[in-house]
């Protein structure tokens, strides 16, 4: 039985509930208002390719800023200390810039409607099928994880039964996506971005005040079991003897290169936001604009994680309300008075919905264009696919509810998600990279590369789980699993290509480096020429900033 002191239950008053209620009303209102702008399948799945860059950029970051990410990163902050910033500065920013500068011309320029569709054009239908199926399965799984996590937090904070939170959360996401499609998802993501920050900033500020500012926090962390090594990002990574349990090679190559590039550059739930941009320049700037807030987000996740570590008694329990994942909810309970309390809870709920909406809108697009249109009902009029998209959204959410309970039984949800990324994204990134750079790579080399790479990651994961292979930690495993998958793709591509038929160059125009040229000015507006809208310059600045941010925390 839980004692009162351990309970995370918040004392929300009528005003807090009014703040939450207003937010839900606005979210649904956006769905209804966006409905007028939907007439074709592109309107529904890709916002009619009409969005400005700042909107797609913030949606891009928000799609990643699900509550799993926020709570998981705060949990990592409490468990691994400042080493958690690797997930942001080396593990996200370079990949986001790479996506914008080098990959977006292929994606946006080829007019593909999804990531699997690019694989069909560059390789063949089987490659598209494998990726579309694994992506669709992963998205409903992760939507389920999001939903389950939402229900757990809502039960702990508000005392609602699990099923009420699951059904209500799913119903709201379902309503606004079925109504307004991707436009509605994107607009709500932009709104969510600001609400999430409005909730997290007060927690961080008061948390820092409580521990006596940054220096007070640093001193207090030295006194915990984490000790001084939690306050450095690189200096203890010569071996894996640090809280993260990973050495610099695993961090740079596994996390910084394969895992992060795999996630950011090929995950359609992210790339879809950029494909909805109104022209090539906006599409390229989308992930780069998103990289700027990504630089700063650890301030409102890792710092609260550390504050919780030193102020919340009993944090780090194996189960119950005081697991590491509840670091932020525990601080909300301890520090926020009514008013900002309502905002913070709204922010948390908003972030759950942002994560789930991204999964659902990616899922319905891939299912409709890459599975249904390709394999079941070809050559129907456009309205037909629009209708399929709406029905599939409903089905996807229902499956998500069903899979919500698969997430149970994992202490640190983030590791579970990372394991999924390692299985699906790293081999996919390898296939994309080789396919975009090497024009002779054949269709079947792409297919076998993707399959063998995925199997490699899967086998590594299973061997680690049953204890045959040892790694420093779950995270260390996901770094190395991703790296192994990537290397397998490259080897397979090199071995299979000489024995199979290459694609004629005429079919590879705009898909491979060196064959044809994407029009980087496609649909450009006058203002796009300004220096501050240059993707290369914006990208270079954010990479330099990411490196500079490390300096005080070496």
């Amino acid at each position, binding site marked *: 039985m839980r004692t009162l002191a351990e309970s995370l239950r918040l004392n929300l008053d009528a*005003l807090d509930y*009014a*703040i939450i209620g*207003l*937010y839900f009303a*606005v979210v649904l*209102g*956006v769905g209804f*208002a966006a409905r*007028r*702008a*939907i*007439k*074709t*399948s*592109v*309107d529904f799945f890709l*916002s*009619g*390719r*009409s969005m*400005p860059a700042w*909107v797609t950029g913030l949606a891009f970051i928000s799609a990643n800023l699900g509550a799993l990410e926020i709570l998981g990163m705060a949990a990592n902050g409490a468990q691994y200390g400042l080493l958690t910033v690797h997930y942001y500065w080396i593990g996200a920013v370079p990949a986001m810039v790479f996506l914008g500068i080098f990959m977006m*011309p292929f994606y946006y320029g*080829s*007019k*593909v409607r999804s990531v699997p569709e690019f694989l069909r054009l560059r390789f063949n239908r089987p490659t598209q099928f494998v990726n579309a199926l694994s992506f669709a399965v992963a998205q409903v799984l992760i939507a389920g994880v999001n939903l389950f996590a939402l229900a757990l937090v809502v039960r702990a904070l508000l005392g609602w039964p699990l099923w009420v939170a699951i059904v209500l959360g799913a119903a709201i996401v379902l309503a606004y996506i079925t109504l307004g499609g991707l436009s509605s998802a994107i*607009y709500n993501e*932009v*709104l969510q971005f600001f609400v999430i920050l*409005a909730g997290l*900033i007060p927690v961080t500020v*008061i948390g820092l005040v*409580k521990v006596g500012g940054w220096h007070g926090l640093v001193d207090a962390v030295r006194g915990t079991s984490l000790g001084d090594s939690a306050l450095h990002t690189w200096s203890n990574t010569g071996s894996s003897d640090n809280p993260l349990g990973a050495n610099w090679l695993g961090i740079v190559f596994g996390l910084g290169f394969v895992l992060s590039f795999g996630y950011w550059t090929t995950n359609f739930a992210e790339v879809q936001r950029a494909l909805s941009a*109104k022209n090539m320049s906006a599409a390229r700037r989308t992930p780069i604009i998103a990289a700027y807030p990504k630089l700063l987000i650890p301030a409102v996740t890792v710092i609260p994680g550390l504050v919780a570590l030193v102020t919340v008694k009993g944090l780090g329990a194996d189960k119950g309300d005081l697991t590491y994942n509840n670091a932020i909810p525990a601080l909300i309970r301890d*520090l*926020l*008075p*009514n*008013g*900002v309390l309502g*905002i913070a809870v709204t922010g948390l709920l908003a972030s759950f919905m942002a994560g789930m909406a991204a999964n659902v809108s990616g899922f319905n697009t891939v299912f409709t264009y890459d599975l249904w249109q390709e394999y079941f009902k070809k050559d129907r009029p*456009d309205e037909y696919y629009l209708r399929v998209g709406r029905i599939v959204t409903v089905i996807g959410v229902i499956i998500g509810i069903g899979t919500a309970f698969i997430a149970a039984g994992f202490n640190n949800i983030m590791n579970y998600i990372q394991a999924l990324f390692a299985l699906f994204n790293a081999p996919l990134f390898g296939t994309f990279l080789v396919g975009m750079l090497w024009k002779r790579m054949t269709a079947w080399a792409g297919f076998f590369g993707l399959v063998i790479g995925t199997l490699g990651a899967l086998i590594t994961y299973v061997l680690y789980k049953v204890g045959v292979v040892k790694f420093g930690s779950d995270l260390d495993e996901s770094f190395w699993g991703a790296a192994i998958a990537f290397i397998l793709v490259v080897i397979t591509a090199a071995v299979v290509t000489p024995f199979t038929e290459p694609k004629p160059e005429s079919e590879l125009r705009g*898909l491979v*480096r*060196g064959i044809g*040229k994407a029009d*980087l*000015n496609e*649909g*450009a*507006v*006058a*203002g*796009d*020429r*300004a220096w501050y809208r240059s*993707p*290369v*310059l914006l990208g270079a600045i954010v990479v330099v900033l990411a490196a500079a941010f490390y300096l005080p925390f070496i």
Partner: protein
Amino acid sequence: MADRDKDIAATEDTKQVSAAARLFDVRRVIGGLFVVYGIVVTLVGIFDSQSEIDKAQGVRINLWAGLGMLVLGLLFLLWQWLRPAEAPTAPADEPADAGGGSTTAEQ
């Protein structure tokens, strides 16, 4: 280019009937919501009791957070007022070699 692909071409062709231009401006929504949140939370902050201020470690967090949200909301409304949404179909005069590095990136 890849848009010779039949499925993609069919989807591209629907552009003429796209209703995307009827989409509203999201800045109005963000601005409106944050102005309301800002006013409400600021008012709460003005009337906060000592126990609430103590809970927040002596910081008048409702007041500050409320004012912050109010300013954010007003900035969005101001931005929309000063620079209404650009017309989506206005191509640049000479797109071929505009804008330096960004547009001549090697493919």
